């Protein structure tokens, strides 16, 4: 897996040495910051409620989660395939999964930087005399990073399919939105309580999985594993798609 580390460093440098990442971060931070201040006002200065709002308790968080990972990952394979760099990468003595893993970690790191802004807000609140509860705040950032990893993995899988970055971003956004909307099928199909499909949809509810633990300050192995397993699955899918590029 040393190849993954090399790819990770290369991708991270590529990300942070391109203006796109900084522009995305600036926009996302401004968006996040605006809603954070709004929530502080709305909750009458309640720091804990505002932090929960920022990290998973609001639609704005999920909007960022749906939109940002596709923009970060769209170029990772499709752009390289278009410019021909991917050929070199695939012929390099690195396993395909290491390539996917390195890129996934790099994209997730960028998202983690974004969510870490909550720690800066927390530090500011502490400096103003009201320290947040740090452990749940850290778990919130960890959870947000895990969710982002899942959506980055989806973005990578789709980026591996196409040679057009914009198309990759578009389809990844659609896929992310579809995954978040899965639980609404339950109401749409008027499924009776206890039906297998309803139970399955309940288990596939990303928002509930996240809010039932990370947002309320708990760490639940069920939810951590959920995100790890599905991130792993989509990374595996990206690896297989990448591999298929050799012979298709």
């Amino acid at each position, binding site marked *: 897996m040393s190849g993954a580390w090399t790819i990770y460093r290369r991708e991270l440098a590529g990300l*942070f*040495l*391109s*203006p796109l*990442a*900084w*522009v995305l*971060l*600036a926009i996302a*931070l*401004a968006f*996040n*910051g*605006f809603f*954070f*201040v709004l929530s*502080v*006002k709305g909750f*009458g*200065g*309640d*720091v*804990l409620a505002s932090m929960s709002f920022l990290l998973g308790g609001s639609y704005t968080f999920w909007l960022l989660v749906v939109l940002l990972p596709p923009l970060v990952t769209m170029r990772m394979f499709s752009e390289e395939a278009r410019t021909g760099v991917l050929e070199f990468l695939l012929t390099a003595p690195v396993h395909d999964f290491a390539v996917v893993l390195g890129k996934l970690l790099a994209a997730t790191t960028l998202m983690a930087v974004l969510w870490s*802004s909550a720690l*800066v*807000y927390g530090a*500011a609140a502490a400096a*103003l*005399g*009201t*320290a947040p*509860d740090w*452990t*749940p705040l*850290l*778990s919130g950032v960890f959870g947000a990073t895990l969710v982002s990893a899942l959506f980055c993995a989806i973005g990578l899988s789709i980026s591996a399919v196409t040679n057009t970055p914009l198309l990759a971003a578009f389809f990844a956004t659609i896929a992310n939105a579809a995954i978040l909307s899965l639980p609404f099928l339950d109401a749409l199909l008027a499924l009776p*309580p206890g039906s297998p499909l309803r139970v399955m949809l309940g*288990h596939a509810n990303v928002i509930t999985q996240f809010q*039932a*633990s990370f947002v*309320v*300050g*708990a*760490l*639940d*192995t*069920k939810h951590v*594993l*959920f995100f790890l*397993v*599905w991130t792993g*699955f989509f990374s*595996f*899918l990206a690896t*297989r798609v990448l*591999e*298929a590029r*050799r*012979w*298709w």
Partner: protein
Amino acid sequence: MVVSPQDRSRGGTGAWSRWALSLQVFGVVALALLGAVVVTYLATLPALRRRFDLTAVGRNTLDTTLAELVEKLPEPVLVEVFFRPFDYPLTRVGAEAQGRMSELLHVARNQFPTQVKVREHDLTDVAKVSVRMKELDLEEDNVVVVTCGKQKVVLRLLRDIARVDPGNPLVESEPTLEAFRGEEALGMALLRVSIDETPRVLFTVGHGERDLFDLDKPVSLGKLHSALVADGLRADRWDPSASPEVPAETRVIAIVDPQQPFSASEVDTIVRFVESGGRLLVTTTGNERLFGASGSPEALLARFGIAARAGYVAQPIPDGFGGWRMGIEQCGTIVVAGAGLDRRHPITESLWRSEERVGLPNARALAPEGVRPQNSLLVDLLRSPDMSWRDLPQSGGRGDWRFDQRSEEGGPFALSMALAFPPEGLVDATEGERRAARVVALGAPDVLGNDILARNRDYVMNVFNWLSQRDYRLVIRPRETDRRVLDLANTNALTVLNVLAFGVLPGLCAVLGLVVAMSRRR
């Protein structure tokens, strides 16, 4: 899955080979998908699942007492939530109470996923919900129903779970949540549903008592019967003249407003039942000719050192202009609240705490008199207000509802009393509290009638629960709410956060992006 040179030499890069390889990839991906589903499912199994509460105040963990109760449940409980938004002015405070109860139930469900199932009903789906409410015999919403096997307990949001200060609309002070007792209410409910027993309550018949099954007449006991059954008790009739011995497994005997006297042997049977650790509810009679006579309920009460006084207790009614009115029928309905409720007794403690009122029409005064059983404890459960008086019958039989200081006695008076004493022949003193004989005397039989039972339901149910030994006491510390609030009014906190969140952090990223763009251009 790389195509080897040998395959190429055999023409392996043809369409068929590609399709075959694609199928293999699909197969592998399908297997991976199955694996992911299996692992996701396994992670939900309670045996493999671990949950860690990271909050400073243990927001995601139940109180140890409550947790122990859940662990000891004989079978899983189903908690059904019927919440609907309250009308103004209770909208905000109601939502707060609903939110805290929902959070508590989620914590319970997450901590004990196999023991606690929570079902939140969507009250906008009227058709579906009304069917379920009918099944559960619910007449109101904003309740939480705890069910375990055949046992069921209904918790009302703004009475059992939360206490609301109504505020004052005249000074624009909104209602506030005075106390949230969700943990305690849930604990009590779990305790009650987990005990798999249906104590038997027998209502005497054969002496003109009120009908236990009639739901139509205002003074009959049909609604009381339904309430007792819904609360997990077995209520039935007993005719002492037909079967002189108290039936086996009887926990409580109730005598409600008899019109004919009991025979001496019947009275002796009942007294023996109580003295050997049985429980008895006796109301006074509304029959003036029977009142106080031999074989009357008053004579039975006298055997336990409780006397019922002639006449009916009355109180003046506010006239709406700051004065008081007497001489009207309404004076004969006593409203007991606050200091009139004993604040320590299990029957009235919860009523006192939640500032409930008990309304007693045509109530007779009770008082300790004569010889009481040894080591007995007699408590005034309900006391009439200080300005009440005992209205004596005039020549026509009824009182005039006016206080005559010369001939009538001024209040307060006991309207309901509870007596407890160790049964005869008790060997183990530590068993005393558990097996104590208990008697409740009630001076107003109408309290139990169909017409006003709903108003006094909590008091009546507490009486039967105490008599049938289901007066569980549980003290659970309310879960702490960790509020860390920035002083927005007196500091520049909001300005600082605004500058940092909306200016400094995004600005820093924009500057760095600019630097990167310029350096790449060079």
